[in-house]
């Protein structure tokens, strides 16, 4: 029983990190029908940005709370800028071309980010310094740290913020309209290019937050970490119903849990096979994901 609870705690933590990334996939897919293969690598860049900041500031003996805050905010700012840069350079010129051309461009960006980071930081693991308090509390036999609790809360807060932004503001409505019909949205006076750019900004900011938190939590990062992360996050986006923001959140947590149970009860070697089998199984019975998609079928 305590093992089970422990898996739940760990699964929810990794699931929350995953959900933040899945949101980026689902938003970007919803708005330009692109599986943004570079998104996992944006998370990775966020992790490395956080790593650089944390190691620099820790060396100068800044207080831990300030270091974490600065790393988080700067990491989010850097990935946000990176996301917009990627959109402008590699995607926007291809928005009216075939969707596969843009997909290959995304694969190119993904590889470029990985290789760029590898050249700067090397191919091995980089380790965040261990600066977070390790204080634990017991939860029905399972252990959860306060850090886990705070990070989980922060993830939920960011997701809630995004949800409210997309569903309650005029810009958010413009985004959803754009996801339904780009031409009609343009005719209604929506600045399509800027709204797409804004979507990339939001998705990438969340990716940065997830990257820095994962670095702080797991400590070990490397240039290839974005691949598996991206794969699982995209799976979560599809599982939740593509374009569906709450769906991506729930499915992210769900995939985190499935992964944690599979690691614990089966073997981590089979985890990805199990995750994909669950996905395929769900799609066979519910072709639009668990919670239904929110994008218009391409006419």
């Amino acid at each position, binding site marked *: 029983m305590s093992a089970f609870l422990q898996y739940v705690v760990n699964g929810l933590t990794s699931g929350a990190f995953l959900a933040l990334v899945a949101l980026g996939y689902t938003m970007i897919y919803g708005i330009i029908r692109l*599986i943004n293969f570079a998104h996992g690598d944006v998370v990775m860049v966020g992790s490395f940005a956080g790593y650089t900041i944390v190691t620099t500031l820790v060396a100068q003996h800044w207080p831990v709370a300030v270091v974490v805050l600065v790393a988080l905010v700067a990491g989010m700012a850097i990935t946000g800028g990176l996301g917009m840069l990627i959109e402008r350079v590699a995607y926007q010129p291809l928005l009216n071309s075939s969707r596969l051309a843009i997909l290959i461009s995304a694969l190119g960006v993904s590889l470029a980010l990985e290789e760029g980071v590898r050249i700067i930081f090397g191919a091995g693991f980089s380790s965040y310094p261990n600066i977070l308090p390790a204080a634990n509390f017991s939860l029905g036999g399972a252990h959860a740290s306060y850090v886990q609790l705070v990070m989980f809360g922060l993830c939920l807060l960011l997701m809630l913020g995004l949800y409210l932004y997309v569903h309650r503001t005029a810009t958010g409505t413009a985004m959803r309209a754009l996801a339904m019909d780009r031409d009609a949205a343009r005719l209604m006076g929506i600045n399509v290019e800027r709204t797409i750019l804004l979507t990339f900004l939001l998705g990438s900011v969340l990716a940065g937050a997830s990257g820095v938190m994962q670095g702080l939590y797991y400590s070990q990062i490397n240039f290839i970490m974005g691949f598996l992360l991206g794969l699982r996050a995209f799976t979560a986006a599809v599982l939740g119903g593509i374009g569906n923001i709450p769906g991506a959140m729930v499915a992210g947590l769900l995939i985190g849990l499935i992964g944690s149970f599979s690691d614990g009860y089966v073997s981590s070697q089979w985890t990805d096979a199990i995750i994909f089998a669950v996905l395929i199984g769900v799609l066979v019975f519910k072709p639009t994901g668990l919670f239904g998609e929110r994008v218009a079928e391409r006419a």
Partner: protein
Amino acid sequence: MTPAQTAQAARRRRLTPRLPGAGMATRAAVTGAACLLSLLLPLLLSQYAMSVAVTVVTFAILGLGLNVVVGYAGLLDLGYAAFFAIGAYTSSLLELHLHLSFWETLPLAVIAAAISGCIIGYPTLRLRSDYLAIVTLGFGEIVRIIATNLNVTGGPNGLYGIPAATVFGTSILTSNAQYYLGLFLMAVAVAVTGLLSRSRLGRAWRSLREDETASEAVGVPATKVKLLAYIMGAMVGALAGMFFSARFGAIDPTSFTYNTSVMILIVVIVGGMGSIPGMILGAAIVVALPEVLRPISNYRLLLFALALIVLMLARPQGIWPARRSRPGSFTAPPEPAGEAPAPAGRRSEPGSVLLSVAGLGHSFGGVTAIGDVSFDLHAGEILSLIGPNGAGKTTVFNCITGLVTPQRGSVLLGGRSLRKLRPHKIVRLGVARTFQSIRLFEGLDVAENCLVGLAAHQGRLLARHGLLGRTTAADRRQALRWLEFAGLSGQAHLLAAQLSYGDRRRLEIARALMSAPLILLLDEPGAGTNPTEKQALMQLIRQVRDSGVAVLLIEHDMDLVMGLSDRVIVLDQGHTIAAGPPAQVRSDARVIDAYLGREETESAETVEEVLGWRS
């Protein structure tokens, strides 16, 4: 220009053929020179370069296979390496355990891949193509993970000691020999995929890629055709897998990762989707470019990645995009003597009941689109379905043609129920349709749009005409005849996207008639036509009726309805409120209420004015 127009203009630009100077002769010369060069390559290159060339050939075969799925059928596959792996493992295991030779394992490996193509294809058939991407990716990963974790496949270490292929008793060991074997297998893949592309199946794939709903509505069995794309693609992939394992004598799961799938996809897109020379060129670039960059090894993948982005920005359609059918190539051979010049549909006894709709009802969520609709359509008549917007007219069409399965009531064609039949089956039974928002295969030319319609009465794509059945002279004659009938014979070589609005409507009618229907369902054919076009359209519809095809018409244009119809049915809020000859319906009080609301003081003149009903 509106954004829609801009997008359409962009699409037209994109669809116009590239390489304008490359005529037939140039193409043939280039192809000949390339063949000669590829045969002489071992004389020109070092051993090391030849081993790279063998890898190029392997990826070219893989590209050709994936091209069937992605390029022809338009299905995104991110796990294609799975078939590469299945071919490699099947062949290796059979050689190691049953001591079969390379060539003996060939059919078995290809069959194993075909079966796995079925397995992956089947559950995903109902999914939209974007979901397909992740499901195929998942399938690819599952295959790799299984190979990594099973004992029989050698786990992470893989299999080794796989014998080399032998040709006429000689083992294929040197790079040069491997190169020629690879070249042979590649030639096989080129021949097979080339034949597929020109076959009826190829046309069905292209129509599916352009518009799945329209494709089913003209008689293409979409699920079967999609499955065949997976199977054909998988079989070619297995060929590459066998070659790969025989070449190295050892395989392990790291050769069949997601990255491999991505590399193959890059070959297809960079080369130019749907194009066979494009695949070979794409493979050369994807494999050779990183090799060329080897001297700056630390930066080569970064440069490769940047080159990929630049390449896509510069040529989003790929380096050597698929060639469209040559302009003017569509000429039908002369009519054999004795054949009737006018197109003839399947004849049925005039006046007999063809289609019988009874108690039809359907709701979407809480909205009742149709409550209770009943009518009969007789052979040789034009029956119009009119009613205010939202009356349920198009839903009636969708229920008849199988796009929507009606919740209540029955649809009988000559006594046979059409309920729950797939749209393509219904077309085969003789019910063809057009769409309110025109749905053509924009990227196919006018003649090809028509020829897709043949799928309906060719029936069993596989059995009757063979998988690689080519378009016969009779097929072409028939297409040209219907195009002439619709007044489009001069435009046969244009892309559907290049036609004017009125021509697009007429092409949709010609395409529907290709299926030799008993009944033609027209959904607002008069929308957006000017008075001259309307006259021509009316003439066309009368001719259709006179050729023996009964017409069921949805239309708002009352001139058209009153001028054409033998009988009119009026729907309001999902119910039939009137039926009869035009003159009778026109004066029906309930019809006037439905259109104008219950306003007792409304004068008859106003009604006539508003509806434009003039006698």
